[in-house]
């Protein structure tokens, strides 16, 4: 084997190889279909283009995917309440800031309250999963159902609008900054998370608990606490995402904010090559997954696919992506190739 081959082989066996290839393919496909897809111009003092849109729109998803990755890793289950929790966090924030011409309280405090609401929800999920030993999907089903209810309770069932312009900054642009704020928030969340995982043993703990909680207990880990922390963290992420969603439309629509986003978050985790049954994880993979999903949605919009048929295409692409990552499929192809070779050899001999 030459050096190049060795390098290629190493590259291909890297766990992020296939997720990246998939993202690249989605983007490439766009280049062919919508030549303007990669065009970035400066418009109105800010960067403007499909690519910026993809990054901007995927920010919430990236944040949620980060939280979801840890939850999946530590408990082998998914948190299906993140969408509802986002809505709740948004509602708390808007409600406490008020809908008048000026804020009821300092802006930062309103944001903190929103995020806190997210953390509280995450902690509740964590309590049910880690302490009460309820299956994650079922435990989070409770807030999945109740979360929007509580949010509506707070808003009185109405869509609340915030009238102070500075509220939009979180979801749009900071003054004199040419990139949308959500991108920076997403980057910050990712960097902080990675920093924590790299500088402490949390990553190792989470994996250990996710793979074998019994063994984790015997080596001195508090699996209850670790799982609890991941759920609370996921709640935090959901809270932050909720604030972005709210700020984008400077209003809280408890019914629709973050609707079905939990599915995309889980999908992002899986597309990033992570196993949904817990254990080893890669944050980078999940981020790639999240961007892939948004790139797909944005490009299908760009191709003017109607929204109600969009799921069909999404499904096909998702299946292709995960199938590409499946080692079983590779094995099958290998076997097929061998068979074909043998038969062709047989034919040669016969001839």
């Amino acid at each position: 084997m030459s050096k190049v081959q060795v390098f290629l082989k190493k590259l291909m066996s890297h766990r992020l190889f296939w997720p990246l290839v998939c993202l690249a393919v989605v983007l490439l496909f766009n280049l062919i279909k919508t030549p303007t897809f990669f065009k970035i111009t400066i418009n109105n003092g800010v960067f403007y283009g499909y690519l910026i849109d993809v990054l901007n729109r995927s920010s919430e998803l990236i944040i949620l995917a980060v939280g979801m990755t840890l939850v999946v890793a530590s408990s082998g289950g998914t948190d299906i309440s993140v969408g509802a929790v986002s809505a709740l966090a948004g509602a708390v924030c808007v409600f406490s800031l008020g809908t008048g011409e000026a804020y009821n309280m300092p802006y930062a405090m309103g944001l903190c309250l929103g995020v806190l609401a997210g953390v509280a929800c995450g902690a509740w999920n964590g309590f049910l999963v880690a302490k009460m030993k309820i299956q994650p999907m079922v435990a989070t089903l409770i807030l999945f159902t109740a979360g929007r209810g509580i949010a509506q309770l707070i808003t009185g069932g109405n869509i609340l609008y915030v009238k102070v312009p500075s509220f939009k900054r979180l979801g749009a642009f900071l003054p004199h900054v040419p990139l949308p704020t959500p991108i920076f928030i997403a980057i910050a969340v990712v960097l902080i998370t990675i920093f924590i995982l790299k500088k402490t043993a949390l990553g190792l703990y989470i994996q250990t608990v996710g793979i074998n909680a019994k063994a984790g207990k015997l080596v001195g880990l508090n699996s209850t606490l670790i799982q609890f922390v991941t759920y609370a963290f996921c709640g935090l992420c959901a809270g932050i995402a909720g604030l972005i969603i709210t700020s984008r439309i400077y209003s809280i629509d408890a019914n629709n904010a973050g609707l079905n986003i939990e599915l995309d978050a889980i999908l992002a985790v899986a597309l990033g090559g992570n196993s949904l049954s817990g254990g080893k994880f890669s944050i980078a993979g999940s981020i790639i997954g999240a961007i892939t999903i948004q790139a797909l949605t944005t490009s299908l919009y760009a191709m003017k696919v109607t929204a109600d048929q969009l799921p069909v295409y999404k499904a096909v692409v998702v299946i292709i992506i995960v199938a590409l990552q499946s080692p079983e499929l590779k094995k099958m192809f290998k076997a097929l190739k061998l068979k074909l070779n043998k038969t062709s050899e047989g034919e040669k001999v016969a001839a």
Partner: protein
Amino acid sequence: MNIKENKEVLTMKNINKNFPGVKALENVDFTLREGEIHALMGENGAGKSTLIKVLTGVEEFETGEIHMADKQGAIINKSPQEAQGNGISTVYQEVNLCPNLTVAENIFIGRAPRKHGHINWKTMNNRAKEMLKALNIEIDVTKALENYSVAIQQMVAIARAVDISAKVLILDEPTASLDEQEVKKLFKVMNQLKERGIGIIFVTHFLEQVYEVCDRITVLRNGTLVGEYKVEELPRVQLVAKMMGKDFDDLATIKKPSEENVQKMHQEILIEAKTLGCHGKIKPFDLKICKGEVIGLSGLLGSGRSELARTLYAAEKPDEGTLKVKEKDIHMTAPIHAMKKGMAFCPENRKDEGIIADLSVRENIIIALQAKKGLLKLISRKEQEQFADEYIKMLQIKTASQDTPIKQLSGGNQQKVIVARWLLTHPEFLILDEPTRGIDVGTKTEIQKLVVKLAEEGMSVMFISSEVEEMLRTCTRMAILRDGSKVGELEEHELSQENIMKAIAGGDQHE
């Protein structure tokens, strides 16, 4: 007998099997004859289990041929199901049963007795009961398997395999978690099957067992075939030499710590349990452990040895009594507390409680130390690698690299990693629950030596093993358990096979 022996039921030729980074099997030949018990021997990681997995279709092999007596041409088993269809019945190394099914079902699934096309539960339960009775096990077969200990599960797995009307029976380390009684019973069954003309492949690390039942021995080393021998032609010492590829300094070299040293250290009481107990696990017991001593726990299967150890380590929350470490009362509710007090615990059930399957060997080694140090004090990558290297060398762990997931190691090597994990925490009190289970002779001696050495350096060790000899060699004192309570202790001078047996059986009571 001779005629039988000559008829080959199974031949494997030039088998090659590679795992990423490891040549697991290289041109291995193997022949099994009708009505023989054929031992497959080798060090940990020699490729025994792999050979069996290749044979039964769990793993694919690259090249080679497998022939069976009554089949035309070479066969390839693509799945265990096919292997069973071809008359090969297997008990794999780790217990591989379904914990959620009942005991009876675990024995019969795939071939349950039927009535009018549907499963006849009554017949199935009755037959399961009988079959286990034949192995001296009397349990409620309608309960889920997970309610029973590893040993019982092992016996159930054996019962399952034995029942199939097979031509070849494969037993991969079935005796690792059994005690003598059960082993006897198993041998009886094996001999019966042999009489019926069934060929049996038997993997074990207990040399006595080989010489007790086997007719022939095939030795593997590092994935290559060393040779096939008749038992009579291969004395014990030579067998060991063949397995290890070098001469082997015998067990006799193990020396217990010198008497005076012991006396000196034993002044210092490290751990003192008073009426410590855990409801439903172990009845209240008193126990004193001194610095530098090796205390053994002896008892029958299910007598509560593991439970006692677990209670000391707070793996089971004690609900009565007190525990003093270095004369200070302490209250422990989780293993981490015990670890902080200098304890370490190597559990008996490697697969369920020991290994963290998907993590690398390195991570598996440092995890306990990391947990002890706490979340914030991350052991740097460099240190991790150093530690891992050190212990891989010290315990001669056979692994492609320290980044290999531990699940890819052979059973015995996994055990070594777990031991390494605990040694790395430099405990003052080390609990070893069946540490030598599934470990080859060479390493076993190493571990025993290690235990004695550690004790000499001042570490206290609790040693639990089903092998009495092993305990005799290492222990300075022994506690006897029966039916979930501690019934006595034997001091060093009282330690002998006979005394222990008597104590276990409940002959005369000691203090």
